């Protein structure tokens, strides 16, 4: 039994013959496209691999309103991988291998908050429409979708991994964390906790997951137990004038009976209050007791060696495990033990606490962050990252890498505070991206933005490694001349050439009268640069080497939309809104350009890599393939129905008014 390509073809031919004889439509044949795939050898299972551009926040957001945009960033349990929300996707930044990839799943709208389970298996993503997605993080498969009826601002998995808590308007809801298996209704509500006056903005779990604490916009913090605990009234800590940005439990030192002793709360006006809990069933001379235990331990160690030591620690552990932290709480009373102020003159916008290392990070609206050691509240250092609001901060488990997200500049920073170096410093184009070009070897991608900056991206890591800021207005086109020269045209009236060895602008091309360039091409040998403009309908040609204007090509009667050089010959195709594509021979002195007429405005054109065909696109959604040698039409593809889809809310108002006027 041997099935080969030729036997397929024979079969296909026989079928086609049969179909022709019986006048059957071709599409009913068994393998209608086999010849196509044999011929092109191309595969089409392209998947979104990566989203370059912004590392955090929402690309293209205007700078003032976006200060509150963007979700929170989280570390995975290993502390080497950072999850950063970018509009409705999650970027996975590996800090060790220094690569970034994008999760395949996509939220319905911009992500507001995300949480990862302690074992790194489940990722919970909640968007601005309160639509939640439960994702298997390793495979990035959506397991369940769910809509919360009220606003969700934060969500957090419990340290034991059995529950997750979400803020639910003014309430806190605790849900059972689902398993990895697909279920009909994986989300099961445990309880709703109430009693806070305004929107909940932060949730914190106690180390043994038996106590939950939430802080609100009204300046109060409330402590609940997860299971009903006899005799416990949820305690409210009120000592702030402003909304409480963060509330954290202090690490429980060994030998303190496994009870919650201290809570730190940080409010947006720059105050830190530390709360201490005193338990009525404990002696006042707790200190003495602890000291006694310690000294006796030391004595045992001294005389008995390690065996007794192990015994004593074991007994201590068993003493702890009898009661949860929640069961101790009814006997406790919380009091303010100290107040500290940050003295930064701006609002606190984000804060996080590393329990293991007792480190508090505070991010301010002015772009400054401070690192403090608690409980002494000594400032380790303060640094100004940018002049943008810091929306979220995170610290990894080992407490060495601080991550910051600034939504207005779409910036993600990872700072190693001990060595005072940046691990990652990535930001996107302000106001979005406009054009891109692959380098000839496919290793580098250059993008030009509306903010006039050019960014160079490494395609294997997905990181931007260089930003060139030589233009003063939006960049409209960029092309690679060879793998080390990138040219860009801009609305500021210049075309600039950049050297990718020294990362600088080495030549600038301008027109005699200032005009805004919208299209750009460079000839295959890299000697001639051409650029088209919107207003005088001219094409300017310069010598690449000395930057001198060689010629101005006139003849179009509409703005130039696209310019392309023939891959082997020295001819140039220019597409224009006047409905023609003109093919210019730059090296011939005289002679009119060949003009190819279209029914509608031409917006794009491209040459086939072997230079025999040219493809043009018009505003009617029509793609036309032309033979380059005789300028004859080869075929046309009507893509209008393929690309149609999607309605604009912003333009419906216009529709209504037009309708009324016509009536």
């Amino acid at each position, binding site marked *: 039994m041997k099935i080969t390509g030729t036997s397929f073809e024979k079969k296909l031919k026989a079928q086609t013959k049969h179909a022709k004889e019986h006048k059957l439509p071709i599409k009913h044949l068994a393998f209608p496209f086999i010849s196509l795939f044999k011929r092109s050898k191309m595969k089409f299972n392209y*998947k979104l*691999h*990566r989203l370059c551009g912004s590392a955090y926040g929402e690309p293209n957001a205007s700078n003032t309103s976006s200060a509150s945009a963007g979700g929170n960033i989280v570390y995975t349990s290993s502390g080497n991988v950072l999850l950063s929300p970018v509009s409705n996707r999650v970027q996975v930044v590996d800090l060790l291998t220094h690569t970034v990839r994008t999760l395949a799943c996509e939220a319905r709208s911009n992500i507001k908050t995300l949480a990862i389970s302690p074992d790194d298996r489940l990722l919970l993503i909640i968007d601005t429409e309160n639509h939640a997605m439960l994702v298997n993080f390793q495979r990035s498969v959506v397991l369940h979708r769910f809509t919360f009826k009220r606003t969700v601002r934060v969500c957090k998995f419990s340290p034991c991994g059995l529950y997750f808590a979400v803020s639910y308007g003014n309430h806190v809801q605790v849900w059972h964390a689902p398993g990895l298996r697909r279920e009909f209704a994986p989300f099961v509500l445990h309880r709703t906790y109430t009693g806070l006056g305004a929107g909940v903005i932060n949730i914190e779990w106690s180390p043994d997951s038996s106590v939950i604490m939430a802080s609100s916009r009204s300046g109060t913090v409330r402590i609940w137990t997860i299971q009903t605990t006899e005799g416990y009234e949820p305690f409210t800590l009120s000592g702030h004038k402003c909304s409480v940005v963060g509330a954290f439990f202090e690490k429980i030192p060994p030998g303190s009976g496994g009870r919650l002793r201290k809570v730190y709360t940080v409010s947006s006006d720059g105050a830190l209050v530390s709360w201490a809990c005193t338990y009525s069933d404990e002696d006042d001379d707790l200190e003495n007791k602890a000291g006694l235990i310690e000294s006796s331990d030391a004595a045992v160690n001294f005389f008995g060696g390690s065996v007794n030591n192990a015994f004593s620690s074991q007994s201590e552990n068993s003493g702890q495990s009898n009661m949860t932290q929640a069961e101790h709480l009814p006997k406790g009373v919380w009091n303010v033990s100290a107040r500290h102020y940050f003295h930064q003159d701006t609002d606190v916008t984000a804060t996080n606490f590393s329990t293991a290392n007792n480190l508090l990070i505070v991010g301010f609206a002015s772009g400054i962050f401070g690192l403090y050691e608690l409980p002494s509240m000594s400032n380790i250092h303060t640094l100004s990252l940018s002049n943008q609001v810091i929306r979220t901060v995170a610290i990894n488990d080992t407490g060495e890498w601080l991550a910051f997200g600034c939504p207005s500049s779409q910036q993600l920073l990872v700072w190693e505070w001990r060595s005072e170096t940046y691990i990652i410093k990535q930001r996107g184009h302000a106001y979005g991206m406009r054009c891109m070009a692959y380098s000839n070897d*496919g290793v580098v991608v250059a993008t030009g933005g509306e903010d006039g900056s050019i960014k160079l991206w490494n395609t294997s890591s997905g990181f931007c490694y260089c930003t060139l800021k030589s233009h003063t207005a939006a960049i409209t086109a960029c092309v690679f001349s060879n793998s080390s020269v990138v040219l860009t045209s801009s609305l500021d009236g210049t075309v600039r050439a950049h050297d990718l060895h020294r990362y600088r602008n080495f030549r600038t091309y301008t027109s005699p009268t200032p005009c805004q360039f919208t299209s750009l091409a460079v000839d295959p040998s890299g000697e001639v640069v051409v650029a088209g403009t919107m207003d005088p309908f001219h094409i300017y040609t310069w010598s690449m080497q000395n930057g001198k204007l060689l010629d101005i090509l006139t003849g179009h009667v509409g703005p130039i939309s696209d310019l392309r050089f023939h891959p082997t010959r020295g001819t140039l195709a220019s597409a224009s809104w006047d409905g023609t594509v003109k093919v210019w021979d730059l090296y011939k002195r005289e002679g009119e350009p060949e003009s190819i007429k279209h029914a509608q405005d031409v917006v794009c054109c491209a040459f086939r890599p072997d230079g025999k065909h040219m493809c043009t*696109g018009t505003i009617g959604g029509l793609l036309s393939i032309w033979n380059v040698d005789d300028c004859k039409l080869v075929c046309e593809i009507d893509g209008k129905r393929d690309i149609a889809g999607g309605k604009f809310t912003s333009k419906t108002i216009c529709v*209504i008014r037009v309708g009324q006027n016509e009536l």
Partner: protein
Amino acid sequence: MTSDNNSSSRYFTSVCYSADGSCVLAGGNSKYICIYEISQQILVKKFQVSFNRSLDGILDELNSKKLADGGPIDVNDDSGDEADFSANVPGAKRGDDGSRKSRVEVMTAQVAFSSTGREWAAVSNEGLHVYSLDDDMIFDPISLTEEITPGAVRANLRTGKHSIALLISLHLNEYALVREVLEETPYGSIPHVVKAIGSEHLERLMQFISKCMLDSPHLEFYMAWCLEMLKTHGLFMEKQRGGFMRAFRAMNRSVQIHHDELKRICDENRYTLDFMEDQTQIILDRN
């Protein structure tokens, strides 16, 4: 209906040919990007750039609940209770009059194929979307017979018939298998194995080698493979240049990446050695 909101008044604003010239990739002022096959003029694949409803132009049917007389109601507009940390103009009492919310339209400004043909990218309002071919999971064998099995590959490997093993694995066209055979082949017998490869497998093998080389520590080993391929089949490939362009570029890319990485380390080492040499010289001179 104005032409602006008519869902059928979308068009392509950027086209790009694939590396082999058989297809065009086209994107425009719509959420879709299309790949067409030229010779048959058919739509091969359609990609939706984004499903993000925070953008405009994603939904095919708008919800009339969210539309009012004065325009769309943003139901999620909770800017009132969301803390606004941006600095206001001094003296402003009603917040920032200039602040407003506008939705960004989904569109594709530019599309381009990478020269390796394994990926393409599109510029949209959300950034640069890089789509790549991830065909490890796909079983796509050629000229399959009963004798061509992974077991046969391993059996031939054990008996030292490396070229037969490589041919069978190329027929099976599975990355893991080809890589196993490539790495099992002894360094000395690479030239002989390469000679046994027929012209129909060359392009495929080159793609595999460049892919293996990307993340492999056996740099010299794979360089030897590349070199032998070019030495043995270089003339043939030169004649069939068009068909091999993608493979050449993929190979060049992997070599280039390794070169860049090594260059930096080597330079650093050289400078450190120079520095140490100078320092010892200075110390010796002082003594």
